[in-house]
């Protein structure tokens, strides 16, 4: 690096202090999860007397957290798989072929990039009730998949547009069918784009709250956001239990984030349209 004006050590110290203040709510959350309720009230800043994991065990067993995590995982994996497969196929058609109606279809998906959830969720909820889909996992998989498609189609099309036309013409001359052009040629080349879409859509599905709140009443099917909210209304004043539940939900995500932070930051910023 070229000459820096700010003395390095001082800068690091200042940044560390800033990061610590910023991070303090999460540090406090974990500290409090090891304390008794009375210690949470009397000495909010004190370090816990010991690393007591009993509240964690209790939160996990009485709080149904394992079931919520499984539900979130199922909904996330299925909807992301749908987004990647359907989105890539649609992006392939829109990028590689010229056909009547192409511009219109592209506009529909691009419109989805800016359309707020509020523009359709009232009728969607009504449709799902009529069809008996509410209180099944499909009630979340279908909208999460559909909402993710706009971004997938648009972003993957950008990646596909960058591939040289000659690549596809040559494979065509060698006798490849359209299906083979897509699955054997385009899909492998799309891998970086698919990863970005997967990260963004997975986080969106994992964290989504409003639709999960409206469509899932059955506690056995709740995902982490609605499950945690149900938990927090059930144990309103048992703060050590609630801090433990928050820690259990938060810490694995932070670990995953620290390990894959480059891909995740790229995925969220490139994918963020809302």
């Amino acid at each position, binding site marked *: 690096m070229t000459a820096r004006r700010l003395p390095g050590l001082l800068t690091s110290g200042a940044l560390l202090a800033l990061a610590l203040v*910023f991070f303090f709510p999460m540090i406090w959350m974990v500290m409090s999860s090891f304390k008794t309720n009375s210690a949470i009230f009397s000495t909010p800043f004190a370090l816990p007397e010991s690393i007591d994991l009993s509240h964690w065990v209790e939160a996990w067993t009485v709080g149904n957290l394992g079931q919520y995590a499984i539900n979130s995982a199922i909904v996330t994996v299925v909807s992301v798989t749908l987004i990647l497969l*359907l989105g890539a196929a649609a992006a392939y*058609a829109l990028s590689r*072929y010229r056909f009547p109606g192409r511009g219109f279809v592209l506009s529909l998906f691009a419109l989805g990039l800016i359309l707020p959830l509020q523009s359709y969720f009232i009728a969607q909820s009504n449709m799902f009730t009529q069809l008996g889909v509410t209180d099944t996992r499909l009630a979340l998989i279908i909208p999460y998949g559909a909402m993710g498609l706009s971004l997938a189609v648009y972003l993957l099309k950008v990646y596909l547009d960058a591939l040289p036309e000659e690549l596809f013409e040559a494979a065509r001359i060698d006798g490849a069918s359209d299906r083979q052009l897509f699955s054997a040629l385009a899909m492998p080349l799309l891998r970086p784009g698919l990863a970005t879409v997967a990260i963004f859509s997975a986080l969106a599905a*994992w964290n989504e709250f*409003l639709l999960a709140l409206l469509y899932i009443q059955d506690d056995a099917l709740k995902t982490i956001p609605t499950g945690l909210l149900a938990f927090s209304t059930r144990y309103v004043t048992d703060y050590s239990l609630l801090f433990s539940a928050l820690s259990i939900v938060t810490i694995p995500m932070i670990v995953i984030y620290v390990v894959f932070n480059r891909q995740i930051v790229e995925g969220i*910023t490139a994918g963020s349209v809302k």
Partner: protein
Amino acid sequence: MKPARSITPWLFLAPALLMFGFAVLLPMVFTVGYSFTDWNGFGAMTFVGLDNYVTAATDPIFRDSFVHVCLYIGATLVLEVLVGLGLAGIVSAVAGRMWFRVAIFTPVMLPMVVVAVLWSFVYNPDFGLVNATLAAVGLEELQRIWLGDPATALAAISVVSGWVYAGFYMMIFYAAFRQIPHEVQEAARLDGAGEWSLFRRIKVPMIRSAVWVGVLLCVTGGFQGFDLFFVLTNGGPYGATEIPTTYLVKTVFRNGEVGYGSAMAVVLTAIVLGVGLLYSRLSRQRASRPSEDRAVDVVAAGPAVVDRLVVPEQAR
């Protein structure tokens, strides 16, 4: 490339179009339809023309909810976009220290509900961090029931929003700063520019389009905010944090006024699309320089389509 058969592209498109059409486009059309009716969700549906829109225009709760959300958006433009820009300036001036960026971005990862429950504790009047900190530095008289006081509740929620998204905008702007050619900054330094004037006069103007995208995301996202408000106050205390999204969810799913709620949803949608349109117009008037990174292109695509729908290409 020409498809082998004319049906081929449609075979590739069909599954995505079906899913998107069924779960997004069709219910969107229905929602607009509902907005012209008086309907409780299951009984008879009566056509009432524009009555719901007239009601919305004169409903003081709905009007106040827009005042609240605009105040919230104004606060988040500062706490998220401006703070994010400042943080991006800092990290781009100090080089390296990736751990700092990683730390500040962390809350973006977490479910908003988890953030909201955590911050409901931070604001807790009895043991919360905010009041405990004030007590520790001898400012007891500033202690408040932050989320229970109509004077502070909206600001308290805006701070949480800033805590989450400042890191997000920092990353967007940081990525844009890194696209600025090194020679430009070196030349300015040789001319004696300090880090601050370099930031203000050279770097920020050079990433102007990324900043505008940040503003667009913050404004359109602000109108759609729901999770934090629902968990922290659900419109209270005394309606001080009622925003259009929480009000319309109550109207439809608690009071069963589907027609009226749909009209509010249409108004909200129109505003978001209108902001997108405005953005598209303004960004077209500015120099048509290619944007700095892919995030900017993707974000601009939505508004551009709204723009084309309003004024067809041929008419220009």
